């Protein structure tokens, strides 16, 4: 079983290994403060796809009490920081997961719970499951097990907190930086006309995360099919002239 050796084992994290430091010491203090706050206030959207979800209620409620760590459930992706995927990911579900993930504002973190998200687990032979989640969206933490106990879940979340505090948890950037790669995998699974409402390329520009990997043949394919959704603007009557103009 030499495959086991290839699985990266996490080392203890030190701040020194963390994200890029700025030269201004005050800015550093500020960054650390922001990261500390982010790590201590995490709202999670649990996308409960499979049996792992059953371990979350005890983790959230009084016995293990996630909230003492500042982790709470949230009902919409727009206000959530963590996307929790708790079990096998069927092809149909994966579409929804990607939609939900793209609706979350950055910085966002993905946690894959149970073996099924790592490699398909006991559904490895199924024709309908996407076996390796991180081929489609970047995953920050895997909590392996079938199923992992609440202690393991909380331990995983604490690891994520440590990553956020030290600035290492920046996998969400990879989605923008390597969008073409992820989109390619998605297109392979869902077909060429696959699209979500969110305009990832525009967001990548917004966050300043455009690289040469962001655009590619797959994004070109996407742009061919894409029907962009325009946001609803307020109107106070400018439409009126337009309509009257058409009539005349």
């Amino acid at each position, binding site marked *: 079983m030499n495959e086991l050796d290839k699985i990266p084992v996490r080392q203890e994290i030190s701040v020194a290994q963390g994200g890029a430091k700025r030269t201004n010491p005050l800015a550093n203090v500020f960054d650390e403060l922001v990261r500390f706050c982010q790590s201590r206030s995490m709202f999670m959207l649990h*996308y409960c796809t499979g049996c792992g979800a059953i371990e979350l209620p005890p983790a959230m409620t009084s016995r293990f009490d996630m909230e003492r760590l500042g982790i709470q459930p949230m009902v*919409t*992706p*727009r206000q959530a920081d963590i996307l929790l995927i708790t079990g096998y990911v069927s092809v149909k*579900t994966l*579409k*929804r*997961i990607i*939609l*939900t993930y793209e*609706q979350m*504002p950055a910085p966002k973190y993905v946690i894959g719970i149970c073996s099924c998200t790592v490699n398909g687990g006991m559904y490895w032979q199924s024709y309908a499951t996407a076996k390796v989640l991180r081929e489609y969206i970047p995953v920050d933490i895997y909590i392996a097990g079938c199923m992992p106990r609440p202690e393991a879940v909380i331990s995983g979340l604490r690891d994520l907190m440590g990553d956020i505090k030290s600035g290492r948890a920046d996998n969400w950037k990879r989605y923008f930086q390597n969008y073409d790669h992820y989109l390619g995998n998605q297109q392979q699974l869902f077909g060429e006309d696959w699209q*979500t*409402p*969110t305009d990832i390329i525009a967001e990548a520009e917004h966050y300043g995360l455009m690289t040469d990997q962001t655009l590619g043949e797959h994004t070109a394919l996407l742009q061919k099919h894409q029907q962009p*959704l*325009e*946001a*609803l*603007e*307020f*109107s*106070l*009557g400018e*439409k*009126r002239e337009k*309509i009257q103009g058409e009539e005349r």
Partner: protein
Amino acid sequence: MTALDNLLLISAVTLVIAVLAGNSRVGGWLVTIMYALQGAALMMMSGLGYSTLTMVQSSFSIEVLSQQLLWRFDALSWFFALITIGAGLFCSWFASGEWGEKYRDNGGSLRLFHGALALNVFSMLVLLASGDLLTLFIGWELVSWASFLIMALAGGKAFGYAMRYISYAFAGAMALLGGLLLIYAEVGSFDFQSLKEAVPTMSSATLWLLVVLLTAGFGVKMAILPFHLWQAKAYAETPGPGAAFLGAISSRMGLFAFIVVIVQLIGISRLVEMKIPFTFLDAQDLLAWIAVFTIIIPTYIALRQHDARRLLAWHGVGQTGYMLLGIVIANDLGSAGGLMHVFNYATYQAMLFMVVIAVIHRTGTSNLNKLGGLFTRMPLSYLAMLVGIIGLAGLPPMNGFVSKWLIYRSLIVDGSPLLFLGAVIGTLGTILSVYKLIHNIFLGQLRVEHVAVREAPLSMVIPMMLLAAVVFVTGYFPGLVLDWTSAVQASIGIPVLAHHLGGIDMKGGLDMIWIVSVLLVGFGFGTLVFFLGGRSKRVHQLDNYAGGHFLTAETRYHYSDNFYPGLMHLIGPWYRNSFEWLERGLISAVDTLSTAMQGLYRNAHPSYLLLAVVVFALSWVIV
């Protein structure tokens, strides 16, 4: 010519102009200007509203049955006239623009509409000016028929509802007439003063009969329980701004007459002496409980309505209960609250109706299940409705909060926890149903067919915005209105509420200037963060989270039908339509009786006559 003569004359001229020129666009604006002139004429008497003037007589008077018929204005009349003319002005303004053109194009008679509106205002002013019980009755009948005219304008279904109203109004008028005859028999005069002097010597039985007859008469117009069934449908079907006008002020005329006769002449202290045998209640408690049930039942009926106009009209019935409750409690806080609620309610009810009519004007429907997401299309109307529902629900910083606070406080001071509980239950229902109103019309998903909808025209938006400003300003500075209510309290002989510009002087009092300023600072800070933060992103409504579903224009994710299913699961079985059932029973009883009488008189009477003659002849022969 006194100031009151001027006012009534201008009002009559308004009526003439409305009938002559109401059909043209210019005529509509002219009528609106005439309402403004009426307002100016009213301002000439503004001393009444600030206790610097006690009464303005009209120089016109006639003598009937050796009774001098008088018309005059006091502080109470002035306060109600202010609301009436204001409502007339804004509704006429609203009707004079695009709404009127569309109404005319759809086959409605704009001349008749403006005429009916002007007639309503005129007849209400005549009623408000009544100086004795006979003129009160004349004004009462005028108002009833004027309301019938404007309700019946739309024809069809509306005519049926208007007929229902006029049946109720007839019954009420008969009760009132009976009361007046009783007064005449007891007092020998229709004069206010002689009634007031005669009340202490009246027997308890007479007084009971009098109070029941008069309360029933006035109660029909107010639509208090159990006479509440006619109002909502009749008002809702009234064309456009007519509904706003009726909703704002029309049924307050019943309250006005109630205050004049029951509170001012008979006196609440006399009601307290009238104990109901074998109970611990007296006449005042009875009225207060009627008021509380008038709050609760119609408000929860409103919660179940699917038509925005019906929903608002049912609230009109419910809010009457607050006014009556405050006035029946009759301490300085309660009566000020009740009177202030008349003003406050008129402002936001007119505005809410205007918003709904603007929505109908643009989308063609007021069905709450067929609207949604109009916020981006009609933002100013949304703002007006937001201000209005905050007022209607009685939350700061709008004026509805102040009047409801006063009424609640008066109930606590009066030591009536159960009445207080009832009023709070009513407020809960109000909050729930106004949320339904704004949610189903303006929030949520914009329907495909409404994407091209645009903001209502200026002729509609300006009256709404002005009313919104009134609602906010009188919420910020309630002292503006409390000045008038204090003058009214002084004139009808109730202890005057000590107040200042911001609210009430008392221990644990109310200072709205503080409350609203703190609120505004909070909101201002939030707004600064929102706009200076600059990190918000506007997304399409279909880029939304629905459990991960991909939304399309065909997907209806706006949840509007069967609103509050959890609550309805709990209280749904309580809706039994008992009053409808009672009304139907009464109708069929009258129907049966009239059929029987008809049979007696039309078909059977020759044989009965023959029988009588034979019996008479036989008895004559035998004896």
